[in-house]
């Protein structure tokens, strides 16, 4: 099925996995609205970048209102935006806790809510981002893993709440991929993490987009409330 004319919103689209997904789906023919706090240098005819904080309720509402006005439709929301902060729990300030929860949990929720409002009559797809840090109970990532555990719960419950609207809600749980998010983690920590995977290597951008592709396929209309972890983590 051609993606021409189909519209998606990707959060955290300026760099890393989000940037890869934006380019991947632009190349596949989608019209893509990207969002991040800073401006993007991605310039393509079918790409529109909006600067917004995903945890800002009114800014998120304005983004989806823009999509509704300009495109008149929405087919998919990719909740990629996320932040992490590796630290021992005894050294983690409350400001960090609030920032991580605001971006990862509140941001994901707001995009799900506003996206579903646009898609509620036509159906659509929501893909959230979990992490292997949650099932691995990764030390030093307590707040990040907890925030993503909340994303898993959101995914599973919203799948039920939005199922009647023909909206599927799923999540992909990437292993570490070489991005800004993982760059600051010491090599020995990362090697130890990779050793706990069934397949001991870094994830690639294409590993992530492959799972997102699956969730977006028309044939996946009966797949909802699922979390697919990469690298053999479960």
């Amino acid at each position, binding site marked *: 099925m051609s993606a021409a004319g189909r519209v998606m919103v990707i959060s955290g689209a300026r760099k890393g996995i989000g940037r890869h997904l934006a380019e991947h789906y632009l190349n596949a023919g989608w019209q893509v609205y990207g969002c991040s706090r800073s401006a993007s240098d991605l310039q393509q005819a079918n790409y529109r970048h909006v600067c917004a904080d995903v945890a800002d309720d009114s800014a998120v*509402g304005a983004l989806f*209102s823009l999509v509704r006005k300009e495109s008149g439709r929405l087919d998919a929301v990719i909740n990629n935006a996320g932040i992490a902060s590796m630290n021992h729990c005894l050294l983690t300030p409350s400001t960090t806790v609030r920032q991580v929860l605001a971006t990862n949990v509140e941001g994901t929720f707001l995009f799900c809510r506003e996206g579903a*409002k646009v898609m*509620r009559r036509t159906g659509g797809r929501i893909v959230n981002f979990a992490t292997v840090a949650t099932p691995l109970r990764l030390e030093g990532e307590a707040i990040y893993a907890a925030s993503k555990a909340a994303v898993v719960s959101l995914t599973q419950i919203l799948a039920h709440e939005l199922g*009647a609207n023909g909206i599927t809600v799923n999540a992909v749980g990437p292993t570490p991929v070489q991005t800004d998010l993982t760059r600051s983690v010491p090599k020995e920590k990362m090697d130890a993490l990779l050793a706990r995977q069934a397949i001991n290597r870094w994830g690639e951008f294409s590993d992530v987009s492959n799972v997102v592709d699956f969730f977006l396929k028309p044939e996946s209309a009966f797949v909802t409330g699922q979390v697919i972890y990469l690298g053999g983590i479960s």
Partner: protein
Amino acid sequence: MDRTAVTQLLVDTLNDFGLPPGTKEELPFSETTILFGPGGIFDSVSLVAFILDVEDAVRDRYGVSITLADDRAMSQTRSPFRRVSNLADYATQLITEQQAKS
């Protein structure tokens, strides 16, 4: 803000929405139509869909975004979702507030 116009917007939205299957409410819809609770035309799921339709209609007609099911709505002694008249009162108040901000 003209409350009569808001009431008409609610009635128009109700007419577009249609009656959920199995309801016995007599047409036409009016200010006295019971929306939710004993004798109401909506269950909780269809009420959610109707509220979203009203929010869309308000945005299209008045150019402002309102959130009908907020904490204030839930804490009111008389639910704004009981009758069309109650919802008209509450929606008129929210639209007036939003227009004053913009």
